[in-house]
């Protein structure tokens, strides 16, 4: 098990009920982490509609998780 920090934005934050949380996980990659959190919080977003960031930059879903990583899940954006 490793510990990571997770940040949520917009409707994902509303669904999680928090801006960020510390999570203990045995997920091997970012996709696995999202599956665990999706089932815990009941997120309606399929992974394919989201992007993911680590340490404030875009990452790939199959990037491995590391102890202390700061992960953010990014729903479709609507600026402009």
């Amino acid at each position, binding site marked *: 098990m490793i510990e990571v920090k997770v*940040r949520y*934005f*917009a*409707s994902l934050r*509303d669904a999680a009920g928090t801006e960020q949380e510390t999570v203990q996980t045995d997920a091997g990659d970012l996709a696995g982490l999202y599956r665990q959190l999706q089932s815990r919080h009941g997120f309606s977003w399929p992974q*394919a*509609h989201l992007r993911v*960031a680590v340490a*404030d*930059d*875009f990452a790939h879903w199959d990037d491995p998780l590391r102890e202390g990583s700061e992960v*953010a899940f*990014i*729903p*479709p*954006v*609507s*600026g*402009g």
Partner: protein
Amino acid sequence: MKRFALADSAIDSGALRQALLHPQAGGFASFEGWVRNHNDGRQVRGLRYESYVELAEKEGERIMDEAMQRFDILDLRCSHRIGDLAIGDMAVWVGVSAAHRDAAFTGCRWVIDEVKARVPIWKHEGYIEGDAGWLHPRQAE
């Protein structure tokens, strides 16, 4: 030098434009997004923009750098509001100066399209009926 910024109060477009004055510039194209009173058939009362600030600033700046590479332009700036906005408020400003108008227009249009597609900013609209909701358009897949 930073060309992209998030602004938590009114965008000073005059100052941004001033930075783009250049003796070689013959054309200057700009775009402003304004908060309009309707969206998707609903009456809008006002809205709030939220951002993943650290990543939005990085991605916005990458768009500026790409535009400088991609188009024959002299300089550009973009600023995007976050926080609470009322009808008529300026939500985003893009300005591009170039020797010729074609590059200024094309660059300006490309930047606003990329900002809307890539920068992690989300719009939370409030409607006159009192309800509110996040806008999460489906991305091009």
